[in-house]
């Protein structure tokens, strides 16, 4: 890749919960984005992002709580994007996973930074002491990152349990959204599965059953509380978690409607979203900004499903990643970050 041709990148903003133990003390406090968001938080009497980042260690009850984790992830991601070198990186489209959609709205210009922050704070604030149901992870891919028929069958069967919904299709992982009863049923029904240091089914701490009908009241409340949000046509094309394209000529009302209604209550299909974005924009790579690298595997698994650049399995993916043209660029990894940053 020559110096004069920037990489065409699909920006994938991470969801809530990406900021973890390893990120303590890594938020760029000097970032204009962070400074603006800090001011917003201070004005609201909440701990600033910088303060949250400066704690001596990671406190799950603090850092994972919706009212903090959401804006922390949001701000971290947007601050990261400030480091992109336009000579090396050209964003051709923007998507997000789950709450990352709100970050994507800001990154694509469908909302201003502060308006998007208000959206995040409003919806994140609803979570304060008010977790509705739960989110549970379970894999559908094997160790080779190809779709696994038995696991997929288990997940499809589990989706028939009362109180269990699909919340997110996340590469080779399914995120269930469920009621308390649904949570018990999932734990009883799904066989325990050990992957590395994680045991599935894995409940995400302090997460509600996002993207399910259980969030209907949240959607209704948000439509009232945020009815005056000044939406705009994005300046960069977006693709939603429903696979819909929202280009530069998209209706702001359509983006608002999706964001506050079906995005809240219907499954967020990252697989479909990435499929549509890759097939429509043909980026050189998927850029993962923000805290951690939680979407790396999911993205790879989706690219394998698509057969993108001939990928068949994890080994192929790792080969591509080791080449000068990696398909996924994580800003959390210094050597990959250097490909797109100053």
């Amino acid at each position, binding site marked *: 890749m020559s110096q004069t041709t920037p990489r*065409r990148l699909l920006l994938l903003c991470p969801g809530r919960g990406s900021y973890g133990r390893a990120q303590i003390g890594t938020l760029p406090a000097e970032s204009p984005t962070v400074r603006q968001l800090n001011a917003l938080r201070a004005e609201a009497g909440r701990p600033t992002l910088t303060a949250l980042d400066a704690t001596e260690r990671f406190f799950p009850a603090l850092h994972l709580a919706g009212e903090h984790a959401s804006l922390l992830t949001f701000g971290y991601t947007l601050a990261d994007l400030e480091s992109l070198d336009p000579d090396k990186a050209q964003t*051709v489209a923007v998507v997000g996973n789950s709450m990352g959609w709100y970050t994507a709205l800001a990154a694509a210009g469908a909302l201003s930074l502060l308006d998007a922050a208000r959206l995040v704070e409003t919806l994140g604030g609803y979570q304060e002491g008010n977790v509705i149901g739960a989110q549970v992870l379970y894999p559908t891919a094997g160790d080779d990152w190809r779709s696994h028929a038995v696991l997929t069958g288990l997940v499809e069967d589990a989706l028939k349990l009362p109180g269990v919904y699909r919340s997110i299709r996340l590469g080779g992982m399914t995120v269930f959204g469920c009621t308390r009863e649904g949570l018990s049923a999932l734990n009883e029904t799904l066989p325990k599965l050990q992957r590395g240091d994680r045991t599935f089914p894995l409940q995400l701490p302090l997460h509600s059953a996002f993207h399910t009908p259980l969030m209907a009241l949240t959607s209704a409340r948000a439509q009232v509380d945020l009815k005056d949000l000044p939406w705009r046509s994005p300046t960069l094309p977006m693709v*939603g978690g*429903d*696979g*819909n*394209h929202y*280009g*530069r*000529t998209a*209706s702001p009302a359509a983006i608002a409607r999706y964001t506050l209604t079906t995005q809240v209550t219907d499954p967020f*299909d990252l697989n*479909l*979203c990435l*499929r*549509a974005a*890759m*097939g*429509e*924009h*043909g*980026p*050189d790579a998927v850029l993962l900004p923000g805290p951690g690298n939680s979407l790396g595997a999911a993205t790879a698994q989706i690219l394998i499903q698509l*057969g*993108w*650049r*001939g990928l068949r399995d994890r080994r192929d993916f790792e080969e591509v990643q080791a080449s000068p043209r990696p398909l996924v660029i994580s800003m959390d990894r210094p050597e990959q970050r250097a490909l797109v940053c100053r």
Partner: protein
Amino acid sequence: MAVNRAAVVDQRFLQHVSRLTPGPAQANLDAAVAPGRALTGRLALQLFESMIASRHLDLASRDLKSRDASFYTIGSAGHEGSAAVAASLRPTDMAFLHYRSGGFFVQRARQVPGQTPLLDVLLGVTAAKDEPIAGGRHKVFGSKSLYIPPQTSTIASHLPKAVGAAFTLERRKRLGLPLDVPEDSVIVCTFGDASSNHSTAQGAINAACWSSFQNVPVPVLFVCEDNGIGISVSTPSGWVAANHQHRPGMRYFGGSGLDLDECYDAAQAAVAYVREHRRPAFLHLRVVRLLGHAGSDVEQSYRSEEEIEASEAMDPLRRAATLLIEGGWASPALITQLYEDTRARCAALANEAADRPKLTTAEEVVAPLAPRRPAEIEAEARRAPDPDARLKLWEGKLPEADRPRHLAVQINRALGDLLAKYPELMLFGEDVAKKGGVYNVTTGLSRRAGVGRVFNTLLDEQTILGLAIGAGHMGSLPIPEIQYLAYLHNAEDQLRGEAGSLQFFSQGQFQNPMVVRIAGYAYQKGFGGHFHNDNSVAVLRDIPGLVIASPSRGDDAAAMLRTCVAAAKVDGAVCVFLEPIALYMTKDLHQDGDGLWNTPYDPDADPAPIGVGRVTGEGRDLTIISWANGHWMSQRVARRLEEQHGLRCRVLDLRWLNPLPIEDILREAVATGRVLVVDETRRTGGVSEGVLTALIDGGFSGRMARVAAWDTYIPLGAAANLVLVQEHDIEAAALKLVGGK
């Protein structure tokens, strides 16, 4: 050196945009682009995005071709306004698109989440096996989720099926059958001005008018994208309008396909008319053809530079840009950015597509051609109709109670049972209803099953077969009848190019199941001449995947018909059921009154598996292989050979002409070491060629001979017997083969 017109068109678009004077910026993009127009500024912008996507796909395809990575360059340049037609329709309005409807395709994809029309088209032109509809077998506009069955048609041969789908949509409503699209859906088909002259197009339009004229609803929209030229031949100015403006039963709508606002208004009006009135409409859009007919077409050899430039000056992209910029709906910068971004996207996706894997084995290529699952077909064939439905259809008098009867009656009974078994089954053709067909094979069925299911068509075989294809697309199970084999030939492409190819070009995602009944062959005592005695089946035998059944006896006919319908139901099979006219009423075999060709009707009889013949006799001296009339004659000759010459034969009835019962042929041949093939079809291209080839391919080393009809048309009167295989021919050949034993 020839000028690269693609580059010229590309550059002049950008120049044009740069020279436009922007109007005052519009405050509300959702306002109409002009008073009285339905098109809003935002929709105009979105249509423009689809148009430039289509244009850049054309340009990318040509660029790929220059790298030997594209295999198809017929494009949509100049026709991109069809995006406005798509925007006027719903994504569930089934669309049969010709090869210049790229704008339509991209725009429809915008109406359904998760679509990737750019990559899909590029995978098509690069023949990548990941291409989602044809899997590298052709470049088509097709998509299951977009209700766009793929068309490879070049001559409007997809129009009859569009009429058929529209007819069936309404017919299913009348019959109370479910639809997987909204009840007020319409069917749309697109084609060019040149192909509108083709008999297939005119036949389809005529059939729609014929139906509408008698108030039979046919909600079909014919969209003629008129660029004024068919490859190098100009369409007479005003011809398309003059030819279609005053057709009975069809409303004509005209407009410019170059101007988005006018095009959208015309499309909206035409779609609203069809949707509301359930009658056909003809939407005539004037467009231009840019970049020549295809990438390989040197347009300069038949058009002057002035003519070419005049067309290019009418580029619909320029006109859309003018509307958007001068109207204040978009800045030149935004238009240029959208255009260049789309170029970059297409270029990147073209590289991705070019590198995708291709089909690498013949087995891969043919995999979706004609899937066959014998166990499932057998189970389906054995599944009994609802007893109450049977009793009702037969009015309490079940056919199995009757005495043994002849072929025509047994086919009638099998059809009756199938009508009772499958509510979605429709039986149609010329004279099949009240008259019961020329040979009474369908007698009483229209009364028993209702005129909505067993009905007469107009006298046009293309329409009959097109109706069958369209019926399949709508979820019905059609049994069309072609009155005589010779009448098939003018419509054969509906089987060959259309029905037979659908699963191949859609990887089985779309199916058009059908069982085409055809009365055929000769031996009608010299009556009727060529057109009623046609004995040529070559035209059917080489259609890939086509099942050809041809019974000789009534019991076989019933079992084979059940199998064919089961195969259509289970695998979407396209079957031809070739019935020997001369045996319809034949009751006797060896002598008058013996009744040996009558058979009992058994509704629970074992199914007749596809590609499995039936053997009579266990003789060790000679194997006679035949079918239909030839089989009946062979049975008679075998008896005489035994009685008069002491020769003991076994006689194999092929029953299936495609696939041939190869195992049976080889086994029975080896059993005697001597094979005589009795072929009532023509010597050249006849079935015996296939049988003898199968024997040779199978390593048969015994003696082989054949008797076949002459390569001629069948004359009237006794002269017919001079050119058809006669029993004495069979006998003589048999004796010669066994060396006068």
